[in-house]
């Protein structure tokens, strides 16, 4: 948990009002909010884990599972919505059998819903590990996923 400690070093004498920035930084460092990390944050800020979990689940930005090899962000901004991002999200959920915020059991994919990513001209847009994919249609989802699965297999 060195990485969590590194975050604490940035917040000497922190009180409970530093909770959200600390959560954000820990997520940035670790990729998600693990049980152990939250326990440590609780010790540091003198807050029970249930309270921290309560705060963290209130916000969409926090996740409680490790990211997959491929982290898929689906834009649900206005333009993408108009261009059918709801159906696109549904298709990803069905294909991967996970909900936003979750990671597939094999650890390959994780899913996240984000507000506008600023690529409205490319709607509906998604990013996979930060790389933008433009005008993705629901019927392309299966191929896209298979392509990345294949890549993982080849690299293994």
């Amino acid at each position: 948990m060195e990485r969590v400690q590194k975050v604490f070093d940035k917040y000497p004498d922190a009180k409970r009002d530093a909770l959200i920035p600390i959560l954000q930084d820990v997520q940035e460092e670790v990729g998600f909010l693990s049980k152990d990390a939250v326990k440590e944050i609780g010790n540091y800020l003198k807050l029970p884990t249930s309270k921290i979990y309560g705060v963290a689940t209130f916000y969409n930005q926090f996740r409680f599972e490790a990211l997959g090899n491929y982290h898929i962000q689906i834009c649900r901004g206005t333009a993408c919505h108009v261009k059918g991002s709801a159906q696109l999200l549904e298709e990803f959920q069905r294909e991967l059998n996970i909900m936003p915020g979750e990671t597939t059991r094999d650890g390959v994919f994780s899913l996240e819903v984000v507000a506008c990513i600023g690529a409205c001209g490319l709607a509906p847009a998604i990013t996979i590990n930060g790389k933008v994919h433009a005008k993705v249609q629901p019927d392309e989802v299966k191929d896209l996923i298979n392509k990345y699965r294949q890549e993982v297999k080849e690299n293994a």
Partner: protein
Amino acid sequence: MFKIEVNNREIKAKSGETILQACKRADIYIPTLCHIEGMEPSGACRMCVVEIEGRGGLVPACAWPVEEGMKVKTHSARALRARKTNIELLLADHPDDCLYCVRNGDCELQTLAEKLGVRQRRYFGEKNEYDLDTSSPAISRDPSKCILCGKCVRVCEEVQTVDAIEFVNRGFKATVGTAYDEGLNLSSCVYCGQCVRVCPTGALREKSHIKEVMEAIHDPEKIVVAQHAPSISVTIGEEFGLRKGKDVVGIMNGALRRIGFDKVFTTSFSADLTIMEEAAELVERVKTGGKLPLITSCSPGWIKFMEQFYPDFIENVSSCKSPQQMMGAVIKTYFAEKEGIDPDKIYSVSIMPCTAKKFEAERPEHAKQGRPDIDAVLTTRELARVIKLNGLDLHDMPVEGHDTPFGERSSAGKIFGTSGGVMEAAVRTAYHMITGEELDAPELKSIRGMEGVKEAKIKVNEELEIGVAVASGLKNARKILDQIKEGRDDIHFIEVMTCPGGCINGGGQPLGMDEETIKARMKALYKIDKTDKVRRSHQNKSIRKIYEEFLEKPLSQKSHELLHTTYKERKEVLI
């Protein structure tokens, strides 16, 4: 004091109080769902909205301060309409299974829907469905039935400082849950059941042992024995509409035999036994310079609390098992031997004011050789259900005594049911053990009552003055423990009860925890003590007998085997 007008009637009001408080004193009913007497208002449920003349909107009576000359209508057309709509909206996301719910007939949501005349469904929409959490040995959660009033969360945080549950997620998906949605068994929950006491619906309940107990009773091979805790006889009457604090011990014994229990014992006997062991432990620690302060171990919620939040105090806590477990141990040994019964045929049921007792009974420390001391625990509420299940009532029941050899008690063993009682009982006997004489005034008034932390000093002889402290409610336990941690050293003995006021306010007791009820229960126990002939545990003849015939003396080898236990730090829980 000034006057306000409520429903065209003048009532008195005090500056700084709320409309709800003023109305309650004047016997004007305003419904609430999220309000807890004695705690800060949360204003979450909007059931208590009232109309104030000259104000635009409705205001919540629970959080609105009175002002001189204000004119309030508690049941105006607008207020009634708003309340009814609120209930209808809550029902729109509530399972329609009242007939199958443990709180059927005793549910605040159901009662208000009835009172407000909800007769048709006006709102249709998605319903939340959640899995049951039956992971804990003591408390079951059904979040689908939760109306998010937040009372359980507040009691867990503000009264008990345990923080096992919290609001998680947001909006329609908001629910009351544990950290990482783990089962309650992996949370910091100490199973005190105070959340169950305040829950307006069936979202929180005790884990029922009724089925197991009735199966044992109907099994001809089994010898089913019951023990009932000191507080039960002064609380169970409430479930049958009897006066608050009425002592129905004889009637309850009659009912237990008619249900089919083969033997009925009183846990006050083993409370006396606990006192013999615990007082001896105190005297030994004082005389030999052992670890002090000694802390009581009767309250299983407190034990789990200590194991997870204050493991440094493990050596301070008395190694004595609780009265429930001591009784369980002697039933399957001393009693079984005496009666020539195979202990494996005995089914031992304890009737407790407590949900945490279910957890205590399942602790592996209490099942030496794989045979549990206690097989099932019924709370006061569950016993009432069992009585009703068997077509019985407490109104028309012959008065009966207890069975030997665990039927005799001193009144010291009876006052175990209230905060301060264990201490008072222990002091009476410890004084005798040190001096060989009896305490002139056995009543320790300064450690009686509803105060969260109470203290007393007892002059034993010229050299020795014993300092004692009594805490009830875990927030108050923290106060005294933190003082000890900071170096306070004038306290020799601490009694900790998990629930505020002690077992009379336990998590298994009849619902409703207003102070008036708790005080009536407390008064009833002290009244028994005042009029009793045997007021000291060491004077209980059956106690003398069990030492003569079986245990030899307090803290003997045999006592240690049967009546003492160990504790361990709990690292597995998410605190």
